């Protein structure tokens, strides 16, 4: 994907030029295939590992009776939280009509689709009887947070696919087919409705994913009291996800810019996302602190566990809490808030990276640490490391995401501002500066 706009030397052939949107430049076909090939190799490895689990059973993984959730569930939770950028930017763009989000909304939809579909694929490998997945719909237990998650994720994945479809239909070649074009146009008209549905679904299942752990009253480390049927983690997961979503979007956009060598969105969009993320993250950190204090001093003690007992096991000391709340919560919130007013881009990105890391650590704590801690007083603390099958399967999904995103970036218009910024760059740096500071 890396390419530079102009070269004095004869440029390598872009054989698929007819498929690439007009007005943007993309690297040569050979270069693109070169970029894809390691990811394809990784994807094949992941498919093989996943197939092993489906064919023979989950004994190929390093999960066990204690670590029933391993790397897969942890990363599923993490990528679904990070993929929240899709629904949240959709919400901002279509419902709140923040038009500036239009610069990243398409990329957000693709990322959301990739995060969710990847997570679902991994889940299908992770459950012992994937062929029975439909039983959840057939005999749903409405008290189960997991049923709620399953329903919402399935519906939302459908919504995301519908949202992704117009982007594909708008491809230069495909849009030449008149019926595609017309259908895309009409689909686009109903998009605000779907964005609204998506927001509703996403909002609920982000919460339910938190609720998944918060309702486990058998696990005092995870259990939280809450409001009505929803434990506090329900709300904290929503808040953290919508805080991390824009941050992740910033990071992926920046990464795409770095790798492709093109400016894709205006600086003002970065700043807008950073401010959004910063404000939400600040709120999250506040509520997380409140939650932690209540949990440590009341909830867990009522279950018969001493305060700080959970943090007595190496390597999960109380530093985890400090890391999660201060280093990867408060600090990025402050950075994002400050840097969105002024300051260089790298501070924005640094804040975004820390915020994303904070969410990942939070999900790690809820999956892995919860399971590592003993509940029975004579039981032991356990540690777990994923084995190659788990890592490969997950990397396969990452590879899938990279490949589809690369293809989308190459053949679809993910960043509407790219063309304009490319022209502005061509016209001269001065003009671009005006744009950048013009928020």
């Amino acid at each position: 994907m890396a390419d530079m706009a102009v070269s004095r030397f004869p440029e390598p052939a872009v054989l698929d030029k007819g498929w690439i949107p007009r007005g943007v430049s993309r690297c040569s076909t050979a270069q693109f295939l070169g970029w894809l090939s390691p990811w394809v190799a990784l994807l094949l490895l992941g498919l093989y590992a996943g197939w092993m689990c489906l064919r023979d059973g989950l004994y190929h993984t390093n999960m066990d009776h204690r670590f029933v959730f391993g790397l897969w569930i942890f990363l599923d939770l993490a990528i679904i939280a990070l993929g929240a950028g899709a629904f949240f930017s959709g919400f901002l763009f279509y419902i709140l009509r923040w038009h500036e989000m239009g610069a990243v909304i398409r990329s957000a939809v693709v990322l959301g689709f990739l995060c969710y579909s990847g997570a679902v694929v991994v889940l299908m490998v992770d459950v012992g009887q994937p062929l029975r997945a439909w039983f959840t719909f057939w005999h749903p237990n409405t008290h189960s947070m997991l049923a709620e998650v399953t329903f919402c994720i399935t519906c939302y994945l459908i919504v995301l696919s519908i949202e992704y479809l117009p982007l594909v239909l708008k491809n230069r070649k495909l849009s030449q087919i008149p019926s595609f074009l017309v259908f895309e146009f009409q689909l686009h008209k109903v998009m605000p409705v779907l964005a609204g549905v998506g927001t509703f679904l996403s909002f609920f299942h982000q919460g339910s994913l938190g609720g998944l752990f918060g309702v486990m009253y058998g696990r005092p480390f995870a259990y939280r009291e809450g409001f009505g049927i929803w434990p506090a983690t329900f709300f904290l997961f929503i808040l953290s996800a919508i805080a991390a979503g824009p941050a992740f979007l910033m990071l992926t956009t920046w990464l795409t810019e770095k790798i492709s060598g093109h400016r894709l969105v205006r600086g003002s969009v970065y700043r807008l996302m950073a401010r959004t993320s910063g404000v939400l993250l600040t709120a999250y950190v506040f509520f997380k602190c409140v939650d932690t204090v209540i949990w440590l001093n009341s909830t867990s003690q009522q279950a018969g566990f001493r305060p700080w007992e959970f943090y007595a096991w190496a390597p999960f000391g109380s530093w985890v809490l400090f890391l999660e709340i201060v280093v990867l919560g408060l600090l990025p919130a402050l950075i994002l808030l400050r840097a969105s007013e002024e300051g260089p881009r790298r501070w924005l990105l640094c804040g975004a990276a820390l915020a994303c890391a904070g969410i990942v650590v939070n999900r790690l704590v809820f999956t892995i640490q919860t399971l590592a801690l003993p509940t029975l007083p004579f039981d032991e603390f356990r540690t777990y490391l994923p084995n190659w099958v788990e890592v490969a399967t997950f990397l396969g999904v990452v590879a899938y995401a990279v490949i589809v995103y690369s293809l989308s970036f190459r053949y679809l218009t993910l960043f509407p501002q790219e063309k304009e910024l490319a022209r502005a760059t061509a016209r001269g740096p001065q003009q671009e500066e005006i744009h950048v500071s013009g928020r």
Partner: protein
Amino acid sequence: MAAQAKIPTPPPQKQRRYGMVIDLDRCTGCGACMTACAVENNVPSGPPEADERKGINLMRVFTVRERNSRRTAFIPILCMQCGDRTPCETVCPQQAVEVDPLTGIVEQMPQRCLGCRYCMAACPYQARTFNWWDPAWPAGMETTLNPGVAPRMRGVVEKCDLCHSRLHAAEDRAAAEGRRDLNPGEYVPACVEACPTQAIVFGDLADKASEVSRLAAQPESFRWLERLGTGPKVYYRTRRRWVRDLARQGGAAPNQEVTRG
């Protein structure tokens, strides 16, 4: 489950709450309950890679050491048949876990289980196990399988159901004799029967006159993690203070005096 179809007369109507009291002072840690359980419930011997992390023990005897005095207690752990707020029942997304309102037994339906393992994460007693492997028996050994219990397939969760097939068999016998209710002792799970020192007393906790109710009410009796409020129906009793003290705590801490050997 197969026996269900055969019952000609209505099942006993008396509301029961089956539970047990395990006398830790009588448990010798011999493991007879574990193998008897595995035989009764058609649990296969796992492949050579199956260890304590992945092997299936519906009942497991823990060896618990007190660090300084080198005292030891053997603690059998099985499904506690939580009766108040059954943690596994509420989390199962597709109703594969059910608390039988008539008997209080927490039932796992392997045919409906998706294998998501959420119930295992939710269970504070780690009394649930997952079939990581296809169940396999060496050639010919399938003739030694218990006809009353269907083997579970790979990828589903299973747990102790207090030898449900024995309950059905006992109910069938009672029905054949024209009785609606079971006599005490007519139905006992395999582990109870196997214990060489009769450390496990099994019965109906709803029947206040039963031995199990009498023992459960004694001050020496306790339940693990009682404060979680799950209402386990498996009680333990011991005269040893240090073992009872264990039960007052929630989880273990590494600096504590107790560790599992």
